[in-house]
């Protein structure tokens, strides 16, 4: 992804595999040919065995199995019964499935950009060298660490309930009162606020990216008469684009997986009126409370396809807007 290097990387990077792109990781150290090579192969597989075992048993195997299950009717009690594409046709006629897809889509499409915008804005603010910057950075990061916990979900619920803090703030500004928790139109904003509250992690990454931007470039632009906005758009954003891309990818994938906060806030129902029925949540309900494992597997594979397409699109379009400096690919 990004090819920017840190100071440590620059200091010690000579000997290390710099081309960090996965597939092109060059087989270095190939100096001492065959006897060492053979022992290297043995050692390689030995050292990699935990990961290989885990990948085979807990990722690849299960993926194949769920692909098979997606075409079956299976409830844990009786042997899976092959049903063809029935699960998929039922899926797209299931109003609750469509609702869960819609809820998740809104969350991803609104939540992620807002969160990233907040992260970038605060990162820019903190990037100006002032005292206390490090402390603020840590403080702002803290919510990312606990945001998905049950504890925070409980607090969030309490804050957005009737007469809760959000309600009182609304009433203070003369807005119509009422808690958000019971209003299907307000639970999504509430969930998105919870996501935005955790802007710290992408902010830290942005901040690190900003520090990599050579001050000379910004100064040069300034000399050329570029205003702050112009400099931001023409210098900062392009140079930051690898980091932006990375954050976008990570946050998008993360947003698809939200579960525990919705579970706690809705009391395990996905309500009110299915307004917090996130994809993961519905899959949980189908798979682990109704035990329709085939149906849930079909849902999982639909999601894999969707996420796969989104990732592919992001990578494709990234060629147009992500600028890599240094190593030319």
């Amino acid at each position: 992804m990004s090819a920017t290097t840190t100071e440590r990387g620059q200091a010690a990077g000579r000997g290390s595999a710099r081309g960090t792109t996965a597939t092109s990781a060059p087989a270095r150290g190939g100096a001492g040919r065959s006897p060492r090579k053979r022992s290297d192969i043995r050692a390689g597989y030995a050292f990699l065995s935990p990961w290989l075992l885990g990948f085979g048993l807990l990722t690849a195997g299960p993926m194949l199995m769920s692909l098979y299950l997606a075409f079956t009717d299976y409830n844990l009690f009786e042997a899976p019964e092959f049903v063809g594409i029935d699960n998929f046709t039922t899926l797209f006629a299931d109003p609750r499935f469509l609702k869960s897809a819609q809820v998740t889509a809104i969350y991803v499409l609104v939540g992620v950009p807002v969160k990233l915008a907040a992260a970038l804005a605060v990162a820019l603010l903190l990037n100006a060298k002032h005292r206390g910057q490090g402390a603020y950075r840590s403080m702002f990061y803290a919510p990312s660490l606990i945001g998905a916990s049950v504890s925070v979900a409980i607090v969030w619920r309490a804050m957005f309930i009737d007469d809760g803090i959000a309600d009182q703030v609304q009433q203070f500004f003369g807005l119509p009162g009422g808690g958000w928790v019971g209003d299907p139109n307000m639970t999504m904003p509430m969930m998105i606020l919870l996501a935005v509250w955790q802007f710290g992690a992408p902010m830290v990454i942005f901040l690190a990216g900003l520090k990599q931007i050579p001050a000379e470039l910004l100064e040069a632009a300034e000399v050329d008469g570029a205003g702050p906005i112009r400099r931001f758009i023409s210098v900062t954003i392009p140079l930051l684009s690898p980091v932006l891309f990375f954050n976008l990818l990570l946050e998008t994938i993360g947003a698809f997986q939200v579960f525990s906060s919705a579970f706690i806030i809705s009391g395990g129902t996905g309500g009110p009126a299915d307004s917090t029925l996130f994809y993961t949540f519905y899959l949980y309900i189908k798979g682990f409370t109704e035990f329709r494992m085939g149906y849930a597997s079909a849902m999982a594979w639909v999601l894999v396809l969707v996420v796969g397409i989104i990732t592919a699109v992001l990578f494709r379009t990234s060629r147009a807007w992500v600028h890599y400096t240094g190593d030319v690919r």
Partner: protein
Amino acid sequence: MVRTRTTTGKAAVHATAIAAVAALTLSACGGGGNAATTAEAAPVATDRDIELSLVWWGDDDRANRYEEAVKLFEEKYPNIDVKPQFQAWDDYWTARTTEAAGQTLPDVFQMDLAYIHQYASNNQLLDLSSQVGVNLETGDYDETLLGSGSVNGGQFGIPTSTNTLGMFYHQDLLDELGIEPPAEGLTWDEYDAWLREVSEAGADKDPQVYGGTDYTGALWIFIQWLVQQGKAPFAEDGSPAFEKADLVAWVERSQPLRDDKVFFPIQRAKQVEPLGGMQVGQATTEITWDNMLAGYAAGAGTENLGILPVPTGADGSQQFWKPSMLLSSSANTDEPDAAAALIDFLVNDPEVGKIFGTSKGVPAVAAQKDAMELAEGSIDSKIVTYEEEVADLVTAETPLPGEGYGVVEAEFKRLGEELAYGNINAEEFADQWFQSAEANLGGE
């Protein structure tokens, strides 16, 4: 050639798939024959140590009561050690399903009418009939009540108690509003009118007080309403015996109340969960199972709650007993004799009756019922008195739900919420519920 290639390709895929699921089918298919546990019943062994698991759904209050009861049981059978455990309703059933799949259901566990068919027909439960007269006495049971625990001729559960629907009212709230509780024997339409009256009177209270909570989304209340019209809710195979039109009529009859915001609003209801409108002192009535009264009193912080029969239909109340808190045992238990003895103790022992009171409903066995200490005006005495009084009104047979009832009941409730939010109309309610019923109810 092409043909061969595709078939072998398919076969290969199939073979891989089979290999992939081999592990799971091994255990999952074991549900069939449980010959090991059909051995003759013999009196509980006293010469060796026995360990029993006992699992129920409920809250910490029930946990304390069970703990006391178990202590008594262990005094009676010093060689038996009971390991109790509990979960909340939803978790309880996911946990049991998992165990069922792994053939590891507890030795003794609470069962509900909504699930007994599913578990029994999957051969997960111990047929207790062979234990009757050996370790388990059912002589004090009413035949039909005991029948609720039998599936296809086997006795798979023993009901602990009976419930019937009732209408709770919040006396303190009504006093504040200066309104009398609803008259006994009023019709559904009269009840609705009464609700309107209360909600209007309570409109300027802070917080606003409503006549009652929306009863439309409770499947059991709908069933009660059907029974009052002389209709059977379920066919032999467990599929719905009523028409879509019946369901539409049910939803539409209460629609004006929703339109005019007479019911305790769903927005509030969702926020006070797991409490109800009555428990937070903002709704004056609620229709639910009579054994819930204790919980409502605890939530409302007052024992000054009353209980009345449900509104009547054309031929009176036509209420029915719902056998509740059945006790079942796993088909795979190593200790069927001891398990049966524990069930026997829990349903028959008078001391246990005293411990639980009416918290699980009115005990099914007279000895337990008589052992209860009923303080004047206490919750227990209110429920017992109610069930005695209402006995004349209980004229209908218990509609026994079949396999899959648990899922469609949850769907009914969910649709009730959608309805309350105004997201669906009566037609859509009926359509979507019947869709779920088709997928989940009635045989294969």
